[in-house]
């Protein structure tokens, strides 16, 4: 089998193993929807009279899509790869003829599938329960942003594994690196009333640009207006940076 066929086969096995852990699978999908409902209940009170495109749900639908993609790629990869590394699975795989990239491609491919599935579910949920229209007229651009975002956060997740000493520390480090950003990047909370310095600071990091790009396609009436290519550029730059770091620091052996 060539490398590509092996990578696709690898995705199949990852997928099978994923669904065999129903509790983990359930929360992967329930979490974003739960957040969406909670945020709409908490912050949506006064928005019922607002015109379409400016309601709370118009903000939270693309925000939760951003959150879902980041969870499925960055968080998922950083945690699963560290666990596999410490369990010695990576070292074992390295002792077989499977090309290393094909193994990682399997992990990344599975993450991408999860991200896609979550995006569809969240978009459908927003459309059905909150009347947030899917931007079909800009579908290509939306897909492009999702692909660049997913790729960038996969690379950053791989890069992070180099800084995680062991599997036990993995959840703490992954959450510490991403949760604060989710709160200051137009994902969970709108940034228009935030202090200027924190607004500026959040624009250094990739989460903000991913969320803003999605927002501009989904609900241009909220938080920032039209789509800017620079958002996509900065996101891509973070992804390339992540890849370069991952290439230098990635380890196939347990760190104990």
């Amino acid at each position: 089998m060539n490398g590509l066929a092996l990578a696709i086969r690898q995705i199949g096995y990852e997928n099978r193993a994923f669904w065999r852990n129903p509790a983990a699978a359930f929360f992967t999908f329930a979490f974003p929807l739960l957040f969406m409902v909670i945020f709409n209940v908490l912050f949506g009170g006064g928005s019922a009279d607002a015109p379409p495109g400016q309601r709370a749900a118009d903000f939270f639908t693309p925000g939760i899509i951003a959150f879902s993609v980041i969870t499925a790629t960055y968080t998922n990869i950083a945690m699963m790869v560290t666990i596999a590394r410490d369990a010695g699975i990576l070292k074992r795989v390295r002792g077989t003829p499977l090309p290393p990239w094909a193994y990682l491609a399997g992990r990344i491919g599975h993450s991408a599938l999860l991200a896609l599935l979550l995006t569809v579910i969240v978009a459908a949920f927003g459309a059905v329960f909150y009347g947030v229209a899917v931007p079909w007229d800009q579908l290509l651009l939306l897909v492009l942003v999702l692909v660049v975002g997913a790729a960038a956060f996969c690379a950053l997740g791989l890069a992070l594994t180099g800084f995680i000493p062991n599997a036990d520390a993995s959840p703490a480090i992954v959450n510490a690196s991403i949760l604060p950003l989710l709160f200051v990047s137009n994902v969970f909370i709108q940034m228009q009333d935030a202090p200027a310095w924190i607004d500026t600071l959040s624009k250094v990091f990739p989460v903000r640009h991913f969320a803003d790009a999605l927002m501009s396609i989904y609900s241009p009436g909220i938080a920032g207006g039209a789509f800017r290519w620079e958002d996509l550029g900065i996101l891509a730059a973070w992804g390339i940076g992540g890849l370069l770091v991952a290439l230098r620091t990635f380890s196939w052996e347990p760190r104990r």
Partner: protein
Amino acid sequence: MTAEPVTAAEALRAAAGPGQAAIEIRGLRKTYGQIEAVRGLDLTVRRGEVFALLGPNGAGKTTTVEILEGHRDRDAGEISVLGHDPARHARQLREQIGIVLQSTGVEEYLTVREEVALYAGYYPHPRDVAETIELVGLTEQRDRRVQKLSGGQRRRLDLAVALAGDPELLFLDEPTTGFDPSARRHAWDTVRGLAKLGKTIFLTTHFMDEAQALADRVAVMADGRIVAEGTPDTIGARGERHSVIRFHLPEGVALPAGMPPQRRGADGAMELATEDPTRVLNALTSWALDAETPLDRLEVVRPSLEDVYLELTGGNRSDQDAA
């Protein structure tokens, strides 16, 4: 003790042919910072033999094995593993070898059969999955998930995964550590079965009885070098060493004159070292019968592989127990 480059290259070329050496190492060196882990190692493992590499922790065993497997780069030396240089042809090499490391995990949510099939798919000419599972004795558990296996069954799955690609050469790192006695016997039988199939087996172990039971040849490594090499029965001139006659004497009884040099063993036993146990034993028992003195727990002991090993490696027992 670095080999001349020319002779090393010649040795490698000679080893590349079929029916020749499975592993050929000349002048291998590896340094980590200030520490010289391997310093000029020469070793040959023939095709089809079970070879055991012994040595205390820190002797350089793991480093050596990981270089052979292509996990680590070397600083100097010539290596041929099944005709490949592990540093340059890692993928071709890995198609022909199987590796069982200590404590390596597998995907918890797959079944035994799925796991073996997953790994079998990485190789160009894999062994039949059911046959591999049968070989390690997991047929009854084939549809059970890995998370539900016992510790011993997991170790057997480790072996099954390493055998999935039908390797010519199998690396076993401490294969029976943590096994109960019957699981060990079973693992040994499996290894012997593989040896019968003509596979070459490279074993590292701390257990001398394991080396004695399985290996055609053993080498003892200490301080980054091979300090002795041979069959389990002859290594370290074991075959020529003195036998020891051990027994307990009642309090206050002394041996007659003309006996070989005596010493007290750790448990208070009298120990006589001799090259001629037949004659000494005869003299001893005749005297004991005449004097009506019982020779409690009388035995004749040949030096064990462990005795030879401890002598060769400086006898630091705590070192090897730390494993």
